[in-house]
């Protein structure tokens, strides 16, 4: 199963926004959550939302607006939701808090060029596995986070297992779910 064309198209617009954000803020925005897991697994599942960690609220809002995204006024207040009118099936949310609360090594992130030098930034697969396992521990019976972690782990190559185990423990997860 591959990611559909409109999903890739939406990522292109998001990459433009990431570039605009980095130019203004001097730091990178990072795509996290289910969308990051979906991309890492090449579409082994998908989500309709893109969660983004960006430290500068004003710079992020400016970047989104200048690259054609619109505020989703139906999505309430707070940091808020956005969408691009060319890709109505997807919503964007700037999530609060720092990048994995400062516990992850941001230099391990991946910069994926989507078009014309614009790129999205994803967490390292180790950080994403750890995040999913941490969320599984508080999931109240929903096994989806564990299933995402297993899919990521199954297809991963060249994992830094020492870093992975430390990060799983940072996130309150259980490495034994992966046989570690």
């Amino acid at each position: 199963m591959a990611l559909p064309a409109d999903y890739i198209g939406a990522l292109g617009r998001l990459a433009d926004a990431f570039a605009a954000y980095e130019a203004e803020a001097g730091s990178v925005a990072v795509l996290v959550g289910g969308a990051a897991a979906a991309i890492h697994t090449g579409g082994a599942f998908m989500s309709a939302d893109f969660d983004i960690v960006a430290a500068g609220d004003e710079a992020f809002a400016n970047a989104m607006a200048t690259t054609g995204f619109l505020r989703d006024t139906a999505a309430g207040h707070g940091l808020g939701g956005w969408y691009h009118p060319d890709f109505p099936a997807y919503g964007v949310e700037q999530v609060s808090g720092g990048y994995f609360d400062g516990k992850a090594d941001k230099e391990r992130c991946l910069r994926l060029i989507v078009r014309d030098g614009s790129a999205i930034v994803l967490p390292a697969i180790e950080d994403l596995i750890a995040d999913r396992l941490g969320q599984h521990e508080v999931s109240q019976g929903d096994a989806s986070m564990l299933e995402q972690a297993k899919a990521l782990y199954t297809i991963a190559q060249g994992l830094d297992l020492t870093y992975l185990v430390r990060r799983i423990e940072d996130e309150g997860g259980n490495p034994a779910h992966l046989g570690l």
Partner: protein
Amino acid sequence: MQTLTLECFLEKAEQRKAVAGLDESEAAVDARRNKGGRRTPAKRLLLRSTERRARAAGANLVASYY
């Protein structure tokens, strides 16, 4: 930070999935979808709004639980 193209990254992901034999049946894909029980109110609103917008535009819907 490692840099590569999205196209190359996705090609490699497809290869790794094939080698690992990752289950991509409808049931397995659905098992990986967030069932929505712990979503924030803001995320529920965003997903509801996104679904309405996609339906109005006649776009392909992405299955979401919220």
